[in-house]
């Protein structure tokens, strides 16, 4: 609902964008992480960046956060160029990074107060904001607990509270729900939705959990450093969504046969094949032909998943743990003895 409204407003007037990205490129050696990215994000929008690991999401986020310099292109945040006026841009920015960045040896309160101090929030306001935000993320009773005693979901909540202490205009969350259990993930989204009701706030969130972006105003599908589509969930589904037939064939021979009859079939997770199909006729024809030779079959109605599949040619389900996660896990194990 909200999403459709904001599109109408913005299409008439794009000059009020709070984040403006123009012709952004970034290379790491020969790898192109971002390849001419243009985005405009409007005030109070809930904007999702959707893409598999290595799509360029985190690179884009790091440039937005002023900690990575782009090769070419410009980014302005709340009117400030992130390369030329990084400290002014940071004043308006709240960030929740993919890896936890709270200090384990400090208490919840100490972490939040530290943040308030380095953002130069006056003492009285700092206390008030900490109280409000602890209430928002339901951690009042953990105020004086050492962060190391908290679960990873709770640490995430501390980070979200922290990113808002200095009244940031733009809240950036990089994979805020990765590695959390379903209940914690739901809660994090509930807090974000509640926040949006309470104050003016632009939220930019990256995720590879496709079901999480349904409630966003606009979704930006990004893969291999390029933006493939930016639109509301409803429009994306209307334009790119298909019914999907997911099948797990009995054996390799059947798989080859299916591929021969449906050249457009794409490999899905766990050895499955995914076929774009519109209308019940296709599913019926498939069943008639291969009904006895498949172990599992399901028909999904048009979803963002099918949008992603048709835009990128890849299935987003079950992204394997990337190198970052492994490195991070290793660091945590290796770091134990120095704690």
């Amino acid at each position, binding site marked *: 609902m909200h999403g459709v409204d904001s599109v109408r407003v913005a299409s008439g007037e794009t000059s009020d964008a709070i984040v403006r990205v123009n012709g952004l490129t970034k290379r790491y050696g020969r790898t192109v992480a971002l390849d001419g990215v243009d985005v405009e994000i409007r005030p109070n929008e809930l904007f999702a960046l959707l893409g598999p690991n290595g799509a360029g999401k985190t690179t884009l986020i790091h440039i937005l*956060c*002023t*900690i990575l310099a782009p090769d070419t292109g410009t980014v302005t945040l709340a009117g400030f160029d992130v390369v030329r006026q990084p*400290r*002014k841009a*940071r*004043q308006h*920015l709240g*960030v929740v*990074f993919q*890896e*936890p*960045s*709270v*200090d*384990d*040896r*400090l208490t919840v309160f*100490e972490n939040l*107060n*530290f*943040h308030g*101090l*380095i*953002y*130069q929030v006056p003492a009285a306001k700092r206390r008030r904001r900490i109280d409000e935000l602890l209430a928002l993320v339901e951690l009042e009773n953990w105020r004086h607990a050492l962060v190391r005693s908290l679960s990873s979901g709770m640490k995430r909540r501390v980070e979200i509270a*922290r990113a808002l202490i200095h009244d940031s205009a733009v809240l950036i969350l990089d994979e805020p729900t990765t590695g959390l259990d379903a209940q914690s993930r739901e809660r994090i989204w509930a807090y974000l939705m509640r926040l949006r009701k309470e104050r003016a706030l632009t939220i930019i969130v990256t995720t590879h959990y496709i079901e999480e972006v349904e409630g966003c105003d606009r979704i930006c599908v990004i893969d291999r450093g390029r933006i493939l589509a930016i639109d509301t969930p409803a429009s994306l589904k209307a334009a790119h969504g298909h019914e999907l037939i997911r099948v797990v064939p009995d054996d390799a021979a059947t798989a080859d046969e299916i591929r021969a009859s449906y050249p457009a079939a794409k490999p899905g997770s766990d050895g499955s094949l995914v076929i774009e199909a519109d209308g019940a006729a296709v599913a019926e024809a498939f069943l008639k032909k291969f009904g006895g030779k498949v172990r599992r079959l399901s028909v999904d109605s048009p979803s963002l998943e099918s949008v992603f599949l048709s835009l990128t040619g890849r299935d987003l389900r079950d992204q394997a743990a990337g190198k970052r996660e492994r490195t991070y896990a290793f*660091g*945590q194990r*290796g*770091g134990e*003895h*120095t704690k």
Partner: protein
Amino acid sequence: MGQLGALYAIWLREVKRALRDRGQLVGGLSRPILWVILLGIGLNPYFRGEVYGETRFVVPYTYLQFIFPAVIVLNILYTSVQSAVSVIWDREFGFLREILVSPMPRPLILFGKVLGGATVAMVHGSLVLALARFADVSIAPGDVLYGLWLMFLLSFAMTCFGVIIANHIRSFEGFGVFSNAVILPLYFTSSSVFPLDPALTRAQTLVVYPEWLVILVEINPLTYAVDALRGTFIHFHQFSPMLGPIVIATMAVGFFIIALFNFRRS
């Protein structure tokens, strides 16, 4: 007030983390006891030399008194370099990013961190002062103040030095090995555990010690830091009294500039 508050936040975090780290406190207490009580008392009777057929003390002090100021330096050295581990910690575990996306200027972030580390190192250094009675060192209150000031400057310099090392090390394990490989040689060649007799000429010194050792001692800036603290606490100098404070101050400024250069680049 604003920037000062931010500086205070970073300083306070370093101090709190150090206070909550039991291991570091135990090290800070056990090290001086080991060096002063065990090594000092053990070697005390042998601290004399035979020069020109005549037995005499090389320096007019007991070994315990001689080694006492050097143990302060050792404690500062260990704690300062160890506190730089927090630089690696912050980098590996993302906390550095939390600070880097804040509007705080980079030099101020580093300055706060170094101030925090230096404070902890100075406190560890002054723990040694509690053993003054056992070492038979009596310190005038005025000397304590001047000594603490020198200790703080030295702590500041050595914390910057630790940060420089940390910037070139990628893992915790590497840092442990490297820091020991740096700390102990620096300490042993700083004329901390054996004196270069100031009464002797250089030619005479070279008769007592091999030339390479004399050169190592002379080019080690810590030699002059130890000398400055010795001058303050037991009023014994091997070198010109002005040299120590000048070397310490130069190290503090120089290492901070190098550390800042490294920190900005990373």
